[in-house]
C-alpha cells in the first residue's frame, strides 16, 4: 500500500489535478517503493539482515509527506514539465527535491515506528531512530 493517496497530494498542491491527469496513484506507489528502499538501505541494513525488512511494518502516515515530496520531485512534476526555458514545473521539482531530503532526514531523526513483532500495534519500544549527517546537494 502506498504511503500517500491522491487526496493527500491535494492537501500539499491544491491545483495538482488541473493539468489533465485524473490520478497520480502510479507515481505515489513508485515513490512509496523508493522511500521504502531508502529506509531499508540507510536504517535497516545498517544493523540487520536486509532480507528480513518488511516495508508494511512501517507506519504509513509517518512517511506520507516524504512520499508526496518524492513523488512531486521525481515523477509527477517531470511528467507535467515540457522542459522548456522558464518552465515553472522544473523550478518546483528543485523545491520539492529539497523538501524531500529535509523531510526524510527529519523523520529519521525524530523517530518512526516499525512494528517489529508484527502484532499490528505500534508500541513505544518500536520507535526507531536514525540520525543522518549526510549533506545532500
Amino acid at each position: 500500500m502506498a504511503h500517500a493517496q491522491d487526496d493527500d497530494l491535494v492537501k500539499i498542491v491544491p491545483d495538482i489535478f488541473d493539468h489533465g491527469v485524473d490520478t497520480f496513484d502510479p507515481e505515489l506507489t513508485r515513490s512509496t517503493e523508493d522511500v521504502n528502499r531508502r529506509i531499508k538501505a540507510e536504517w535497516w541494513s545498517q544493523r540487520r539482515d536486509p532480507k528480513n525488512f518488511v516495508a508494511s511494518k512501517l507506519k504509513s502516515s509517518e512517511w506520507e509527506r516524504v512520499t508526496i515530496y518524492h513523488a512531486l520531485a521525481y515523477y509527477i512534476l517531470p511528467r507535467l514539465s515540457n522542459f522548456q526555458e522558464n518552465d515553472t514545473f522544473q523550478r518546483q521539482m528543485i523545491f520539492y527535491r529539497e523538501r524531500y531530503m529535509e523531510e526524510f532526514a527529519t523523520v529519521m531523526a525524530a523517530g518512526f515506528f516499525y512494528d517489529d513483532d508484527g502484532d499490528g500495534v505500534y508500541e513505544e519500544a518500536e520507535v526507531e531512530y536514525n540520525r543522518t549527517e549526510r549533506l545532500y546537494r
Partner: protein
Amino acid sequence: MSSSKRQLILDDVVLKLKSIKSPRLGKVSQKPEEFSRLARTAFPFVLVTVVSETKEDIAMDSRLSTLNVDIKVTLDGKGKTENGESQMTAIIEAIEEKLEADRSRDGNAQLTELLEVGDVSATAHPLISQTLSFGIQYTYLKGNT
C-alpha cells in the same frame, strides 16, 4: 445563491467534456491559457467559451436565449501531420457524440445543436487546433437568466 441557467449549462458542457476518457483529453477550461505555461499533460487542451448570446421575447415574462459556444481543441501535433489530424478527428467525434447524448444540458436547455466544425489550423508550431461551434437554446423568466 443558485447559479444562473447560463452557468449551469456551461458547467454541464465542461463536466461532460471532462468525462470523456477515450480518446484522452487534457485540461478542459473556460479560461484561455498561455500554451507555453501549460503542462504537457494538459494537451489536448479544450477551451470552452461563449462567443455570443442572442435573446428574444417569447412571452411577456419569458425569454428565449441562444448561447453560441465555441469548443476549441488544441493539441501538440508536432505540425499538421496525418497522425495529428486523425487524433483530432477522433476527439472532435467524441465531443460531438458526448454533447449530443443529452441535448438538454441536464435539463437546463431546450436544445443543443452542433452548428459548425472548423478547419484544422496550425496555431503555433507544433500546435494544431480545431473549433466546434454549438448553439444552445434555453428559456428563462424575465430577470432570471
